[in-house]
């Protein structure tokens, strides 16, 4: 029998149920919330799974986000430098410079002002579903177009071009995509966006693309990459929360009934769905630049640290009975948007989209249900952002 050296095990990824973390991941949380981790390239680093520890690490600026220092816990690829403008992969003061360009554009008030438009977009998609008649695959009919259309409108990207983004985004997110193909897909998206940015430089516009392109101190490449991040994040994450969240609602009839009867608020339900589902299953990821001690553990320069928000959101030390979807308890404090200076800049938009998205869907179809047996709903197992691949529903 091969002896596994203590603390040098790879990231557990084998799930036994569609919505719960791999049992081995939670075992490691119980045993050692700050644990050694073997990365696919053979190097060793850390895996942090405890809620308090993940939250503390996310707020700790000694952990770096620089991409050239980060290894993936699930893909055996060499760390590579981020292109200019990929601010999620930078540390202060560089990060601050980019983030401050965006904070004024994503305020709670501005996002709340989009509520009416989000509702119209949701209603249009629901009208189309009704015209088609059941069964309908909720993913392409509702979960994907709602956030896609919203972020395309906000940025000023022609919605007709959404297929370029959706296709390439899927290719990039699939952990089984060969690296050359992923880079080709990335390049195609960047080239397209760069064209839009250049056009905005010539002819200013008052959408977000126009606003960002007007920053003369930024190169076209920087603006393009900032927009790329916003577009990619706006497409993938909320879409998967809408589809996976609907799956969770339809397979937890007690919680669905509670929400329908007004026994809880949509706000609490959305936070709890965020906590329970944590669609980012493999991160966030950080790196150690200089040696330091964290929670009594020696962090060594050059090591990669995987922070499992997925495990942290199911930590019984923070959330009582964490594997139960519980709208009364609510998910306040969930780490799905991250924590610290990199916390999701689009989170207030995502909240609006989810609150309106779930509510409009449930209001329209009082008898919404899965049109296939629960176990036949296919999950996006190989995606960096988890979700359902397709989900036929009827009403």
């Amino acid at each position, binding site marked *: 029998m091969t002896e596994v050296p203590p603390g040098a095990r790879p990231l557990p990824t084998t799930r036994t149920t569609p919505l719960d973390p791999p049992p081995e991941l939670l075992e490691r949380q119980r045993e050692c919330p700050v644990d050694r981790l073997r990365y696919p390239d053979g190097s060793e680093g850390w895996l942090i799974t405890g809620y308090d520890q993940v939250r503390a690490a996310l707020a700790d600026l000694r952990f770096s986000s620089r991409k050239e220092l980060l290894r993936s816990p699930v893909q055996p690829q060499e760390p590579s430098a981020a292109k200019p403008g990929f601010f999620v992969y930078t540390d202060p003061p560089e990060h601050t410079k980019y983030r401050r360009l965006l904070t004024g554009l*994503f*305020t709670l008030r501005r996002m709340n002002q989009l509520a009416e438009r989000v509702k119209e977009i949701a209603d249009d998609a629901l009208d189309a579903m009704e015209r088609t008649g059941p069964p309908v695959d909720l993913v392409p009919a509702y979960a994907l177009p709602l956030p896609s259309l919203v972020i395309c409108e906000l940025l000023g990207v022609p919605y007709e071009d959404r297929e370029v983004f959706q296709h390439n985004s899927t290719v990039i997110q699939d952990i089984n995509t060969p690296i050359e193909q992923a880079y080709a897909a990335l390049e195609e998206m960047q080239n397209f966006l760069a064209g839009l940015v250049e056009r905005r430089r010539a002819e200013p516009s008052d959408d977000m693309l126009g606003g960002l392109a007007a920053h003369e101190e930024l190169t076209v490449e920087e603006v393009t990459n900032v927009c790329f991040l916003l577009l990619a994040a706006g497409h993938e994450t909320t879409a998967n929360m809408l589809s996976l969240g609907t799956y969770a609602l339809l397979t937890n009839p007690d919680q669905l009934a509670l929400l329908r009867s007004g026994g809880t608020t949509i706000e609490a339900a959305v936070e709890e769905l965020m906590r329970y589902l944590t669609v980012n299953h493999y991160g966030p990821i950080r790196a150690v630049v200089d040696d330091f001690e964290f929670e009594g553990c020696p962090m060594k320069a050059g090591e990669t640290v995987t922070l499992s928000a997925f495990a942290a959101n199911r930590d019984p030390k923070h959330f009582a009975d964490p594997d139960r979807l519980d709208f009364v308890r609510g998910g306040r404090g969930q780490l799905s948007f991250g924590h610290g200076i990199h916390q*999701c800049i689009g989170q207030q938009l995502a909240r609006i989209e989810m609150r309106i998205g779930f509510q409009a869907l449930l209001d329209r179809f009082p008898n919404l249900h899965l049109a296939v047996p629960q176990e036949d709903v296919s999950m996006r197992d190989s995606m960096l952002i988890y979700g359902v691949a397709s989900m036929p529903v009827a009403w």
Partner: protein
Amino acid sequence: MRVDVDRDRCCGAGMCALEAPEVFDQDETDGLVVVLLTEPPDTLDDVVRSAAEQCPSGAVRLRE
């Protein structure tokens, strides 16, 4: 309770305005925190504490 904010630390996530809109807002241009009530009434203690706790960057500080 007295509310102090550090705009240099603020990352504009909007959590304070979400948790305690009576006490916090975001600047229209830069999105950074703005305090509406530096000494909020006791009735708001819970939401103000929650806002400080939910602030991702540690920009909201409370003095009891």
